[in-house]
């Protein structure tokens, strides 16, 4: 069966300018392939990071802190008035969440919400004449299990219950262990800012894959943390885990409204990194768009040249009875063909690059630790890159195609003699 006439003519035009067509095809293919490879790499890393922080961190942390500093009574009474207070000495508040038990009970009653109380603070780990600063979190193992997957990340030790079975047990991140030269079952001195010193035994080492967590976090029983901080019966964090992670932000807002304390959803806890991801994505899309724009200039160039070369042909086609739209369609089809073929080649190339990157193994330590590239493979990358390439190729062809369709056959046949 013969090709449709317009397609047949368009194809012949492209085949006639083989070298230029190949260069344009290459441009589109590379744009598509790089988009797939870069998107797979970056989104792989981003998704992995988010998955890990969702996995290891509570989805909402309620802190013994307020988003807005408390207002003075006079400011509340004369709201909007010309009140200017200076030299105020803030009241020394006892830190910790007041009414934590009520908060825990209220949240625990709600379906799909799991809560655990903790007390966090700074400590110094002293071992072999070396001091390592770290954060300590006091926890209740059976409750903590419901809000983080800490137990799953243990690379030495088997259970959080070791904190119960060993007097003064401590679980440390593998980064902390590395920095202090500490190993499993070592006895270390833990010094708190209030001067309490406890000899503690390492009963577990975890590796979450998130560098910041592994390098600074340690865990002890809640009671031990309260002793270290000299804050008996105090908790300063309520950790919340949700069955539906997307509900973290609305729940945090609700907790703030209801209890007044600052409640940070996981997005806010990792805001800095997530902000970097946005910038990364902007850079990625800009880079790939730039590649495609350059490729489109190639297409524009090819089709403009074809239009220029085929001016006589356009004249005769029009005199023969081709409508303006028929002429326009022929040249747009040329851009479309380059776009479609370039996309198909780019898809294959992109797939190849991604699979090749998947075979590379090396140790990487940034926000997260990994052995090789973390890749995310999704048909969406193929769909987006294909759509971008085809739309831009068609647009690049549209301008010369429009010019071709507007050529006056009389001018052409007069000038051709």
């Amino acid at each position, binding site marked *: *069966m*013969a090709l449709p*006439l317009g397609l047949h*003519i368009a194809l*012949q*035009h492209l*085949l*006639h300018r083989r070298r230029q067509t190949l260069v344009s095809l290459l441009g589109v293919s590379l744009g598509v392939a790089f988009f797939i490879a870069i998107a797979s790499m970056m989104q792989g890393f981003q998704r992995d990071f988010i998955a890990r922080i969702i996995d290891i961190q509570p989805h909402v942390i309620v802190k013994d802190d307020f988003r807005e500093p408390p207002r003075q009574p006079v400011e509340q009474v004369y709201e909007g008035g010309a009140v200017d207070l200076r030299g105020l000495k803030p009241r020394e508040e006892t830190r910790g969440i007041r009414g934590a038990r009520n908060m825990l009970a209220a949240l625990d009653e709600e379906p799909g919400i799991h809560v655990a109380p903790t007390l966090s603070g700074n400590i110094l780990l002293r071992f072999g004449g070396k001091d390592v600063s770290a954060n300590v979190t006091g926890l209740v193992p059976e409750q903590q299990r419901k809000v983080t997957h800490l137990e799953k990340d243990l690379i030495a030790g088997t259970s959080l219950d070791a904190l119960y079975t060993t007097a003064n047990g401590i679980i440390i991140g593998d980064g902390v262990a590395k920095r202090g030269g500490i190993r499993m079952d070592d006895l270390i001195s833990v010094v708190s800012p209030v001067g309490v010193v406890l000899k503690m035994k390492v009963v577990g080492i975890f590796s979450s894959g998130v560098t910041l967590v592994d390098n600074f976090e340690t865990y002890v029983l809640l009671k031990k943390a309260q002793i270290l901080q000299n804050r008996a019966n105090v908790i300063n964090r309520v950790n919340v885990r949700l069955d539906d992670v997307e509900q973290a932000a609305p729940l945090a807002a609700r907790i703030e409204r209801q209890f007044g304390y600052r409640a940070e959803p996981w997005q806010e806890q990792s805001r800095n990194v997530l902000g970097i991801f946005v910038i990364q994505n902007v850079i990625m899309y800009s880079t790939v768009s730039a590649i495609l724009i350059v490729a489109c200039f190639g297409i524009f160039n090819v089709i403009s040249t074809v239009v220029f070369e085929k001016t*006589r*042909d356009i*004249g*005769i086609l*029009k*005199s*023969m*009875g*081709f*409508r*303006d*739209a*028929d002429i326009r369609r022929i040249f747009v089809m040329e851009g479309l063909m380059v776009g479609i073929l370039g996309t198909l080649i780019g898809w294959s190339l992109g797939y190849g690059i991604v699979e090749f990157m998947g075979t590379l193994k090396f140790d990487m330590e940034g926000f997260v630790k990994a052995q090789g590239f973390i890749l995310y493979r999704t048909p969406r990358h193929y769909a987006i890159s294909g759509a971008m390439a085809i739309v831009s190729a068609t647009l690049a062809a549209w301008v010369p195609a429009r010019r071709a369709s507007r050529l006056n*056959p*009389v001018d052409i*046949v*007069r000038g*051709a*003699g």
Partner: protein
Amino acid sequence: MTELIARQVTRELPGPVPVTLVRGIDLEVHPGEFVAITGPSGSGKSSLLYLLGLLDRPTAGTIVMDGLDTTTLTADQAADLRLARLGFVFQFHFLLPEFSAQTNVEIPMRKLGRLDDRAARRRAQELLDMLGLADHRGKRPDQLSGGQRQRVAIARALANDPPVLLADEPTGNLDSHSAQVVFELFRDLAHDQGRSVVAVTHDVQLAALADRRVTLVDGSIVTT
């Protein structure tokens, strides 16, 4: 068959100094008639032909084809009419260089869609055979001589069996023998097949082969 009538046709190019290409042309071409338009260079011969062929629009007057006032047609309607009822032959052959002689002749038929692919192929073969190009059907334009190319262009103009054939200096690039053959062919197409044929030429001897000769000077008909 088709009758082509120009009534008081004027074509003026706008501009700071307007240029009149043709002025007040009255012309009737009947079915089966071969009309030659002659005149000196710049007299408006080609302009008149483009107006008759609906490639251009008159600024005044009307062109009627089979009772239809073509000046009222949209650009697309005019294109459709050209495709179905008009055939053009130009001084330059204007064959599409990427395609064979056979495909060049098939293109108008494929565009019109009146014949299926197989029938279009057969008709293209018949036309090329009729014009003595049976052995050159598969050749591309750059593999043909000037006369052969022009004959392929004539075959293409006849592809959709148009009742009106318009030729603009079709022999300008041909030797005298080939030119004679082409004009005799036009005469036969008019007389034997009942087509209306209008050919522009500055060659008086060739014009003598036509049934009627129309002479233009400065955009107006001086003799008919």
